[in-house]
């Protein structure tokens, strides 16, 4: 089956936001302070909002009557196109903040570029979300610095978190055929071209956080094509089970 690159682009953006938003919502009530609890909920809310936009757009482009909810709740693992980074478990607070920082820094560059694409449906959503995404990148970078340069314990937890999550970074910038078609169609961005700016931003934070940039690791990929870690299946089982148990229901 040939996939529509425009619809798939919207889907990838929506899936990243949805899965990361779902992960952040798992923190609710369990964060280190009430203030942090509220800020994690803020991030989650922004991302769920973005997911609603992009999945809604994907459904509109597809034109088969699937809306954002149908796409969120009635697709299986193999249909999900989010990157592997966002589905990684919350772990401890260092792992959650590292994941957020690695993703939001990428998302900020992506949306800055996407705000200028030809197709207004993509450019406008990116532009609207930019303020949120910049805040996410800043907030998570602040935590990376605080934890990296905090205590020995927090520093070590940051090293451990990076040691695992770093291997999922290259996937963010990978361009496949569909991405290239999306660039041609005026909806997508050359993600590979964002890498130098990403490295510059990341390296600056590493330095301030007194963290060493990890050595390059064997990259794990597959998310964009529906091949995920085992974690996604469990996330979807939790997230989808009510709508799937009542397929005719409206909520």
């Amino acid at each position, binding site marked *: 089956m040939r996939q529509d690159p425009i619809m798939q682009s919207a889907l990838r953006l929506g899936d990243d936001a949805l899965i990361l938003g779902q992960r952040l*919502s798992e923190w*609710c009530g369990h964060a280190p302070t009430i203030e942090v609890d509220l800020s994690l909920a803020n991030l989650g*809310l922004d991302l*769920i909002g973005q997911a609603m936009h992009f999945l809604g757009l994907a459904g509109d482009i597809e034109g088969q009557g699937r809306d*954002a909810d149908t796409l969120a709740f009635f697709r299986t693992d193999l249909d999900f196109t989010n990157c592997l980074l966002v589905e990684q478990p919350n772990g401890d607070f260092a792992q959650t903040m590292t994941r957020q920082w690695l993703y939001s820094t990428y998302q900020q560059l992506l949306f800055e570029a996407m705000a200028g694409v030809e197709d207004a449906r993509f450019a406008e959503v990116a532009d609207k979300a930019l303020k949120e995404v910049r805040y996410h990148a800043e907030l998570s970078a602040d935590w990376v*610095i*605080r934890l990296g340069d*905090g*205590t020995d314990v927090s520093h070590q937890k940051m090293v451990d978190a990076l040691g695992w999550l770093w291997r999922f970074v290259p996937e963010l910038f990978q361009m496949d055929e569909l991405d290239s078609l999306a660039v041609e169609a005026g909806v997508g961005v050359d993600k590979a071209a964002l890498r130098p700016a990403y490295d510059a931003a990341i390296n600056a934070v590493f330095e301030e956080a007194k963290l060493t940039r990890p050595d390059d690791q064997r990259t794990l990929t597959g998310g964009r094509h529906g091949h995920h870690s085992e974690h996604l299946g469990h996330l979807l089982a939790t997230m989808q089970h*009510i709508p799937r148990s009542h397929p005719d229901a409206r909520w």
Partner: protein
Amino acid sequence: MYTTELDKSRPVDLQTGEPKDLVDAFEARVAADEFIEPKDWMPEAYRKTLIRQISQHAHSEIIGMYPEGNWITRAPSLQRKAILLAKVQDEGGHGLYLYCAAETLGASRDEMVDALHSGKAKYSTIFNYPTLTWADIGAIGWLVDGAAIMNQVPLQRTSYGPYARAMVRVCKEESFHQRQGYSIMLALAEGTDAQRRMAQDALNRWWWPSLMMFGPPDDASPNTERSMRWRIKRETNDELRQKFVDATVPQAELLGLSIPDPDLTWNETRGAYDFGDIDWSEFYAVVKGEGMCAKERITARKKAWDDGAWVREAADAYEAKKQARNVA
């Protein structure tokens, strides 16, 4: 801090030993519906009662995040998920405003948190009931937030300024919570058989605990009279409970759901609903910590706090280093 300056000839209140002129002036201001502010003189019992009431309220907001938080990851639509996450976030925010209000009375946040974790401080028993289906999220918004509004609206005019102002902010959000809960119930009531069953079952389980949220009956509530005089309570438990029943019964009818009380009837002469006896033995059992989720709720809160200790320490350590660098 006042007793040290006491002049021996100054008349004192015989029960508390506090200067009578100050007590009288305080009582007069409160009776005139003036706000008492943090730097104003106040009787020690007023301060203590308020700290207990406000911190208990704050703890209830925080513990109240759990029963609903239980459904955020499983909310059945993206819209509902976002609304629920925002709602639970609001409750955390209410907890923070209230802790701040209590701090103006000289209570420290750490002390209050310790009292909650050690079980010394109480919180609303309603949150020790489990949320079993998605309809519970509707029922909580509709009934529990609805009851909270009934309790809190009069407190916007409570005598202690910071508390009254916190309540103004809180009440604005609570009425939104109540509407979103009702909207969940409405969707279920208009939905499939399974959804209607869920909705009725949730109403069956949450109705009586919601009535208990107003506290023991007036004749078993010894401090009511003094609290009313001090304007830290503005209507009695039974008055508020009656208001809630009268407002809620027509809403249930609109949903086509039945209130689980065979004695519920409209009383023409009173212009109010008569309702059945509340099982107070259940209320006191739950107060004592025998609710289904009593243990889970407090364990979850303690675990969040303990697991986060290293984060708070790191943030403090970083702040200290930054300060030291700025000085250097």
